[in-house]
């Protein structure tokens, strides 16, 4: 961390979004993580994404578990709602919050330890239920906060800083998310914001469980030669399947791609995902195909990144439960306690 507060001064030409905010208004406190941590780069991508999407920071609820990654919500969207839960329990707290008030935008931030070890069950059930959220796993292959033990996402053969190779099998969160029915699955890399920012934007605008596994090098414990989660390793083995753009309308041209190479997907909020194919053979609408592709390339030691699967027509948890639109804290006493007659009616329907 740094001793001085980041100066409030900003570039004289710094742009404002339609709400009148600059990107700086989406920052939080100065990070206390190690200098060069991939997690900080992800925080910057989150700042950029929310600013670009004209979302007022106080309309966001950011929830996290325990770990360096889970500390990061303190470093972005200062004015947002926040809940730093217990280790691995972010998904259930997020689910509860979402059930109580679906008018906020839910952002879950977690680590590979937090989500793939202690919180694996929570991770699975939140996805299975289709909670409307953006769930970012800042995946560094180690327990950073507790000084670098291998986590469940570490690849076999990956070597620790002390030189010991990992022997356990890896848990692949992207594969799991596909298996569990997530309606938006992506993988990014902290060292490539050009790819990551649109992925975060797309996840935010997606209705349903959106999971982004972001490979995020741990500069202190997992960025050495022999690691498979280092800046150098991921750069050398990165296999990006597509490049994404989130555009407000179909006609908006942001990048000129050759015809036939782009696909446009309407999002429920009226925006469009414009997908530029980098791999001809990759179809992000095919869940089974995606799983196969992933496994094949993983076996070759490649790290597949990009938007891996999306179901733009997905439904969320509330649809199944038929819950009320209004946040619970806005319901009046009369609505909450409709009286003995209504109770009797409900009871009799259950007999």
């Amino acid at each position, binding site marked *: *961390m*740094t*001793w*001085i*507060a*980041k*100066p*409030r*001064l*900003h*570039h*004289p*030409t*710094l742009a404002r979004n339609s709400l009148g905010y600059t990107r*700086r208004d989406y920052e939080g406190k*100065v*990070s206390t993580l*190690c*200098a*060069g*941590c*991939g997690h*900080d*780069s992800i*925080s*910057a991508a989150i700042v950029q994404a929310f600013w670009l999407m004209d979302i007022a920071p106080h309309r966001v609820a950011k929830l996290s578990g325990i770990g360096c990654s889970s500390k990061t919500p303190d470093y972005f969207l200062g004015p947002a709602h926040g809940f730093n839960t217990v280790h691995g329990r972010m998904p259930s707290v997020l689910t509860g919050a979402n059930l109580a008030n679906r008018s906020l935008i839910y952002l879950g931030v977690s680590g590979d330890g937090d989500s793939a070890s202690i919180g694996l069950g929570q991770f699975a059930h939140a996805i299975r239920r289709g909670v409307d959220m953006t769930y970012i796993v800042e995946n560094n292959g180690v327990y950073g906060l507790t000084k670098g033990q291998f986590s469940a996402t570490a690849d076999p053969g990956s070597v620790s800083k002390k030189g010991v190779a990992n022997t356990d099998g890896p848990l692949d969160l992207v594969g799991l998310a596909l298996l569990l029915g997530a309606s938006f699955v992506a993988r990014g890399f*902290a*060292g490539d*914001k050009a790819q990551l920012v649109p992925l975060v934007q797309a996840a935010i605008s997606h209705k349903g469980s959106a999971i982004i596994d972001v490979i995020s*090098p741990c*500069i202190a414990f997992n*960025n050495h030669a022999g690691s498979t989660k280092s*800046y*150098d390793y991921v*750069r050398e083995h990165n296999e990006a399947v597509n490049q994404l753009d989130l555009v407000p309308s179909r006609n908006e041209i942001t990048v000129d791609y050759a015809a036939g190479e782009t696909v446009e997907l309407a999002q429920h909020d009226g925006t469009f995902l414009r997908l530029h194919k980098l791999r001809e053979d990759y179809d992000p609408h095919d869940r089974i195909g995606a799983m196969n592709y992933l496994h094949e390339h993983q076996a070759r030691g490649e790290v597949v990144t990009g938007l891996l699967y999306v179901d733009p027509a997905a439904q969320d948890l509330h649809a199944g439960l038929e819950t009320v639109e209004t946040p619970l804290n806005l319901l009046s006493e009369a609505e909450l306690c409709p009286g003995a007659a209504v109770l009797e009616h409900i009871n009799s329907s259950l007999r």
Partner: protein
Amino acid sequence: MHPTDTSKPDHFHKVVDCQWACPAHTPVPEYIRLIAAGRYADAYMVNWHSNVFPGILGRTCDRPCEPACRRVRVETNNGNEAESVAICRLKRVAADHKGDIQARLPQRAAANGRRVACVGAGPASLTVARDLAHLGYQVSVFDRDPKAGGFMRTQVPRFRLPEEVIDEEIGYILGLGIQFHGGTPISSLRRLLSDGFDAIFVGSGAPRGRDLDLPGRREAAARIHIGIDWLASVSFGHVTSIGKRVIVLGGGNTAMDCCRSARRLGGTAVKVIVRSGYDEMKASPWEKEDAQHEGIPILNYLVPVEFEHEKGRLMAVRFRKVRPELDDRGARRLVPSGEPDQRIECDEAIIAVGQENSFPWIERDLGLAFDDGGLPVLDTATLQSSLPNVFFGGDAAFGPKNIIWAVAHGHEAAISMDRWMRGEDVRLRPPPRVHMTSQKMGIHEWSYDNDISPEPRRKVPWAAAELALKSIRVEVELGFDGSNAWKEAQRCLNCDVQTVFKRELCIECDACTDICPMDCITFTTNGDEADLRRQLRAPALNVRQDLYVSDSLRTGRVMVKDEDVCLHCGLCAERCPTGAWDMQKFLLELSRAAPDRESVEAGREIR
């Protein structure tokens, strides 16, 4: 773009905007930090070596450094009114609080047997004399005025510059064993040349005030004065009063000094009347404000056409009204507005419409060439004239400028004269001395204060108006006290503490890009300069500020830093995991005529 060559001093020097803009390249942030540390004498000596007259300049400098100061650009669109650091007034703080510095002055050197003459004892000549005297040259300075100082003494009024300050700082120079011959006009260069001096420096200024040849000028001459002559008479005490209603004609700094002086000598209704509009006036903004602050109106777009008099007694000045008009080429010119002339009554008028050079004492058959404008033909870098042993500087060289330019010329001329007298190539200039020192003390501890002060610029306190207007000898500005000086010093961004990038160490983690509050740093694919300037995180629109471009990184991209609005906060270096960024203090001292002239051969070739 090609990678930036930081082995040459220019890139980092330009980053220190104030130092780059200062004609004498004073290391400004260095002395500002010393002031903040309460080391006033050290701060004074940093100045003394560079600009020779810190106490005088701290009150009177034209301060080209301040409009250049990065703080202005950094504060733009950030809330407060964008204002520079009060660089000039901080200089005065060093002078006011320094105590006795006599022991720190250079020792008189043993005579080297060579003799130098300086014509005029203004700042240019005195700088030459100082730089050469401590090398052992025997320097004689001649001035027709009884005391040394040139226009600093005879023109700049005492309410801006007290006599004691002039005496003190000129004393330091003359104390180096210089022979000053006051009251000694030089009337013939031929004679001076025949006196056997090894080299001659002409620092005789631009001593002639322009006149206005209008009807009534001759008849009413007794009440119409030439500005610089009148100011000199005031300075010498020959003039001690003026009529109540005074008109000052002209819009430059001389006009401002004339009107404010008149205000103190009995003028109760003093007006400044200018041909041009207010914004086009030559006077510095602060000089105009100071005059208005003293209740002196400035009237614009009035061209004097006649001095009206009754039997030789000045009654009024008649003015033609004009308005600005853009001609076909977009240039402004003044055209009559068609309204009737305006007559403004007055008791006395002062003409302050410019100065001219004049060298009646230089014979035109000596081989010393003059151009059509009456200025000597000089090598602009060496200041050598077509008579190789005669050098020029200050207002005498290229027309009226200011004190700090006179000093800068003095330094360059001294180098030239020293080399000339040693039989060395005058055009080969000794390089500046550059030191780079890492400021790193710990992971996030630096040996400079990297926190950025959000404070607005401090105002210098003034003497009460009634008191100040009572006497021409009462200094108006009082200078900062220690605590205000400290607060103002904290506003300085330490632009000399450079962000130095080591490409080999960078792992492209983006930490520096993300933390930088000013969006200075971008990692991108290389391109030509126009391309790069557009594709940065914040477009680099200020082309007077350079880009700092690295060689290719591992991903094939380059690091591009726009130096324009960097705060020198060091956060990039604090957040860099590999030490690819370091904060290094860049200290550049211009070479002076000096005994240690090592590495002259590797010197700066004149471009």
